[in-house]
């Protein structure tokens, strides 16, 4: 995959993970910075998005500034993992949901409009799955999200 990217696509992916211009025509500014036309920037971003390489051009919100969120973990008997993961996914408050290699093998992030709703969803997930949920809310953030520097050598 990585080797199939053009140099223009590599620049689009790496150079604009933050500080997207807050002017009426941000894509034209990107185009000017890269010395290409706006049409090329838009069509490449569109195909990168359609291909699932980028999830969006947009904001990453700071956790816990709006509403309430937590990282939750469940120790699921292996034979129930898919069933429990699907149950967890039915809640709109769940965004990321991963299997991880540990006794606590299902990890998901819950984001709700407020603490009360967060507690309610945690209780509903425990009731629906019959399994206790470990809730590990963020207490302090150390990392400043500057995006992720991509390396192209393969």
């Amino acid at each position, binding site marked *: 995959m990585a080797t199939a990217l053009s140099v223009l696509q590599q620049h689009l992916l790496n150079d604009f993970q933050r500080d*997207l211009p807050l002017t009426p025509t941000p894509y034209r500014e990107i185009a000017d910075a890269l010395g290409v036309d706006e049409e090329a920037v838009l069509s490449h971003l569109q195909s990168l998005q359609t*291909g699932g390489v980028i*999830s969006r051009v*947009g904001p990453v919100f700071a956790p816990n500034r709006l509403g309430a969120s937590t990282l939750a973990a469940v120790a699921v008997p292996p034979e129930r993992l898919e069933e429990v993961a699907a149950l967890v996914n039915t809640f709109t408050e769940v965004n990321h949901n991963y299997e991880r290699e540990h006794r606590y093998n299902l990890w998901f992030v819950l984001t709700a409009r407020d603490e009360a709703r967060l507690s309610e969803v945690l209780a509903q997930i425990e009731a629906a799955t019959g399994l206790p949920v470990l809730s590990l809310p963020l207490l302090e*953030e150390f*990392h400043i999200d500057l995006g992720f520097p991509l390396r192209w050598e393969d």
Partner: protein
Amino acid sequence: MATVNDPREDPRLARLLEAIQSGLPLTPRPYAALGERVGLSEGEVVDTVSRWVREGLIKRLGVVVRHRPLGYRANAMVVWDVPDDRVGDIGRRMSAHEFVTLCYRRPRRGEDWPYNLFCMIHGRDRHSVNAQIELLAEACGLTDTPRAVLFSNRCFKQRGARYLAEVPTGDTRSGRMSPA
């Protein structure tokens, strides 16, 4: 408008917040297009989003990449049990490494879950991630500190957070991650 702290208290800002979570339209005037959808002028959208960035509500605004399609197939959450009075120092030192993509302090949960410092590492394969973990442990003086490494396996769902409960679930993605 400037006096509203929680954007969700102003219906137009709430709609903008909801609309922008799935990303900017890929059209020449994206802020104008968003504004049209939520009842704000282009200038109001630019000003509001600028303010959200300035206030730290938005951590960054730009291209949000997915690591896996780009060849970053290994992802580990590494959890550490470090002394509470040193967690800030260690967390800041840890997050200075560019391969650390997230670094948080979280509560312990008794003997069952004794870890209070979490970091996330993305790499091309498990071998390189394990090497980075060793490097991190050395650099932060944690070679003898209890830790666990939780590689991710399957992804059952991945999308941006939604702050308004009534927003329907969108692009749920599911697929096997390479166990490499």
